């Protein structure tokens, strides 16, 4: 047996790519979980085709899953990949330019027959014509080997056996990166408990892949990626939408309130609805409404009823909700509106990510209609950020807009999940009838300018409210000029005072310097990676990432003045930068990318350098 080198790597990016039917998401997910269990830090991002099921073998049908894992802190799913798995010609074509020069390609040679080449639009075979020069190409006839491995399972047809191809690849990669198969074997046991033949086929394919690496003499290098130095604790892997759903459930539990989700399906927000629909035993009610307007309006009804009303949506759905958001602002009831942003405008790029709904969140309603806006910065952060959104909504009796995006929603990362006890309390205080039986005043405010929440069914608090301008204190309809101005100012001030109840903005890096890179939302990881590298290169720059977009943390203005330059990278055409310039009159500049995909570290490094001159 040939002795093989084992190379130690700090960080590896693998992209699994194949036809939609090839099971790449599952493969990637399994590799991810195994890496996590071993103790690597990681970040993942799936790359679904826009069509439900595009014809097999076509470019439109390619489905991918990217995983970045390492023995150091990982901030993103990775810029370029080190290893590309290409199950067919189309998968190679779509992904080749994301592979770094010198990287490894594992190809299923069976996916490069004449038909596949034609569907992928290759005139001749890239495996043979020099296209892949400079890469380390590992050719395996995965189809054939899988068939062989499962040859004597007579219960299954060829088609079913071929479906195990992905396990072969996974086995091979487990071998290559020296990972145990246990986790996946366990998963297969559970998944196919009722179907022993399929189970057997999958297990055989997995092991065949592993042993193929082990026994075939061609492959001389194996890699080892050690544990990452992560904060001690118990971890799980989590995707953004899942974290968001759990954050809502946790908030419901901790507040002791029922949570009602009124929602209408839309990519990439639907999974929150799907996820929450499973938690009926947590008292979570999900209501698939007839449209987005009914989604938010039913949530408003639920909030008026003394529950946590939530609605989830994306771009076009958000546009439809703006009238009702105005009502919620007038009613001053707790409500959480989650916008999982996607590429716009209009129907836009439904399956791609973007951050272009910030100005809509801040200003996209008729009239002066202020409300708090929060954004999550990583998949796992969706949990705590939405939890905070619920807390603010209840504590300050206000609708809150919570922004996530397609990248966070479908991306995943390790999460040191909290225990229920560690979560901050969400105290709820419903109004109670005055002891002197005086008339209830639904708009009598406390020092935070917050009005009482009267739960229908409570004797003595009967009251009527609506979307017309109302008299302060009594809530009666009022057309009085001065009252209107007063109420507009009070509603604004109420939101601004939330700043007294949120943390000051922190920075990562020097307290003053050449530049502050100011971001928000899903760009955190990429900015972090880029700024870290630039700091290592000696630049005196720092990073600040906003969770609170309205109100801003009290110290933001002072903070901005401590740097020579403020640079604002965004996955849009420049939105936060507008607000910063207006509010603080600093000549902040944007770095913008509007391609439906996140920043890569390297492009940020380069573009920040350009800004630093």
């Amino acid at each position, binding site marked *: 047996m040939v002795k093989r080198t084992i190379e130690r790597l700090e960080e590896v990016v693998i992209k699994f790519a194949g036809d939609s039917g090839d099971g790449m998401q599952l493969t990637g997910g399994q590799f991810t*979980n195994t890496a*996590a*269990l071993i*103790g690597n830090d990681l970040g993942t991002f799936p790359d679904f085709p826009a069509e439900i099921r595009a014809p097999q073998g076509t470019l439109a049908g390619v489905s991918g899953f990217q995983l970045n894992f390492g023995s150091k802190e990982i901030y993103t799913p990775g810029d370029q990949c080190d290893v590309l798995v290409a199950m067919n010609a189309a998968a190679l074509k779509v992904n080749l330019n994301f592979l770094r020069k010198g990287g490894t390609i594992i190809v299923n040679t069976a996916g490069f027959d004449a038909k596949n080449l034609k569907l992928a639009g290759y005139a001749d075979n890239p495996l043979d014509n020099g296209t892949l020069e400079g890469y380390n190409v590992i050719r395996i006839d995965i189809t054939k080997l899988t068939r062989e491995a499962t040859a004597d399972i007579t219960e299954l047809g060829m088609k079913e056996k071929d479906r195990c191809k992905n396990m072969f690849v996974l086995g091979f990669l487990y071998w290559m990166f020296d990972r145990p198969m246990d986790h996946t074997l366990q998963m297969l046991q559970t998944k196919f408990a009722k179907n022993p033949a399929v189970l057997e086929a999958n297990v055989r394919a997995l092991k065949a892949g592993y042993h193929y690496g082990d026994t075939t003499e061609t492959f001389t290098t194996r890699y080892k990626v050690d*544990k990452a130095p*992560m904060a*001690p604790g*118990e*971890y*799980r*892997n989590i995707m953004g939408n899942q974290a968001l759903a759990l954050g809502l*459930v*946790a908030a419901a539990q901790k507040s002791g309130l029922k949570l*009602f989700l*009124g929602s209408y399906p839309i990519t990439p927000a639907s999974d929150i609805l799907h996820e929450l629909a499973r*938690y*009926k*035993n*947590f*008292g979570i*009610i999900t*209501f698939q*409404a*007839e*449209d987005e*307007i*009914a989604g938010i*309006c*039913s*949530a*408003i*009804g*639920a909030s*008026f*009823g*003394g*529950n946590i*009303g939530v609605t989830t949506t994306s771009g076009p759905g958000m546009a439809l909700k703006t009238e*009702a958001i*105005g*009502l919620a602002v007038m*009613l001053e009831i707790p409500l959480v509106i989650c916008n999982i942003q996607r590429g716009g405008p209009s129907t836009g790029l439904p399956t791609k990510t973007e951050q272009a709904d910030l100005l809509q969140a801040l200003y996209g309603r008729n009239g002066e209609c202020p409300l708090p806006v929060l954004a999550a910065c990583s998949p796992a952060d969706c949990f705590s950020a939405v939890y905070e959104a619920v807390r603010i909504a209840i504590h300050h009796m206000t609708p809150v807009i919570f922004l996530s995006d397609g990248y966070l929603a479908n991306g995943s990362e390790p999460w040191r*999940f909290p*225990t*229920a006890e560690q979560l901050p309390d969400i105290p709820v205080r419903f109004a109670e009838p005055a002891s002197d039986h005086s*008339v209830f005043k639904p708009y009598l405010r406390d020092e935070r300018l917050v009005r009482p929440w*009267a739960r*229908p*069914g*409570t*004797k003595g*608090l*009967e*009251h*009527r*409210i*609506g*979307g017309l301008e109302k008299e302060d204190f009594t809530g*009666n*309809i009022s057309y009085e000029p001065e009252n209107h101005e007063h109420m507009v100012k009070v509603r604004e001030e109420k939101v601004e005072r939330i700043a007294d109840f949120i943390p000051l903005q922190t920075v990562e890096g020097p307290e003053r310097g050449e530049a502050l890179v100011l971001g928000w939302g899903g760009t955190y990881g990429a900015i972090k990676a880029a700024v870290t590298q630039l700091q290592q290169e000696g630049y005196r720059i720092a990073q600040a990432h906003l969770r609170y977009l309205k109100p801003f943390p009290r110290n933001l203005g002072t903070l901005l003045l401590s740097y020579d330059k403020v640079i604002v990278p965004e996955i849009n055409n420049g939105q936060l930068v507008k607000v910063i310039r207006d509010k603080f009159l600093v000549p902040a500049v944007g770095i913008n990318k509007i391609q439906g995909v996140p920043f890569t570290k390297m492009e940020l490094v380069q573009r920040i350098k350009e800004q630093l001159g």
Partner: protein
Amino acid sequence: MAEVTTEQPVKLTPKDFQTDQDVRWCPGCGDYSILKQVHTILPQLGIPREQLVFVSGIGCSSRFPYYTETYGLHGIHGRATAIAAGLKATRPELSVWVVTGDGDALSIGGNHLIHLLRRNFDINVLMFNNEIYGLTKGQYSPTSPEGMVAKSTPYGSLDHPFNPIALALGADATFVARSMDRDPAHLQQMLLRCYHHPGTSFLEILQNCNIYNDGAFELFTEKATKKAHTVFLEHGKPLVFGEQQEKGIRLDGFTPQVVSLSDYSVDDLMVHDENDINKAMILSRLFEMNNGTVTYPKPFGVFYVRKRTTYEQALQKQMEQISEKLGAPDLNKLLRGRETWIVD
């Protein structure tokens, strides 16, 4: 219908349902009578004020909650039904009422209405049909007759109107009825039926807008013509009408005929069966059959009623079943998920 338990039997009077707000409808508006009938029946429900919620959209009619001393939400145009659904889903023990207009319910709010009806939340929908947009000062509505000259149609409207009863039946409503502002006794009776029906009750109330569409329903409300142009539906009773109760509706195949009781006996007449969807559908179009020769009366009363699980009942049952199956909620278990690892 909402089941409610209270400590003590509640003794309320209509006056207890008046608020401190000035009622601001135009003097003479039909809304006043409807308000009065609602205030009259509410004490008869035997539930305390705090268990009642009135939800409305936008329109003259939708100002209703401000004038009723219960919980109330004056929503946005067309969306009262959707708001009420969320409220009822989470608070099934409350008695939820929607007050809406023909524009609010059938124009901008048409979709939420039909979806509410099919889902069958136990909510009482009172649609004040004045065949006009009152609040915005007189445009025609989806129930206005073709040719109506109104603010936005100086040369006459081109729209074929909805038949609200037929639409509600088409949307699988479980309770469909019609009444009018000018017949207090009947209106009260219908309001009580709405309350007692477990499921969405759709009540069309013909309401005179004396400013923008005065007299639209004179034929049915005025003494001189009412008897000849209305037929009051009663379960199990034959369809008799006319000045002297001298006419009736008979079915010739599926085609309703107006017959004289001098030619036919009462036994020949169509007998109202409020549980028969097919009959209800036929009756919903009775008045439309008017042609030059024969005048068909407009039916009032309950066209159709059936029992069907309400949405909130089904929801509650499902939640209980699932909870039983999955056990008590364990947040820590949920947060852990299925696979974890420990870094130390």
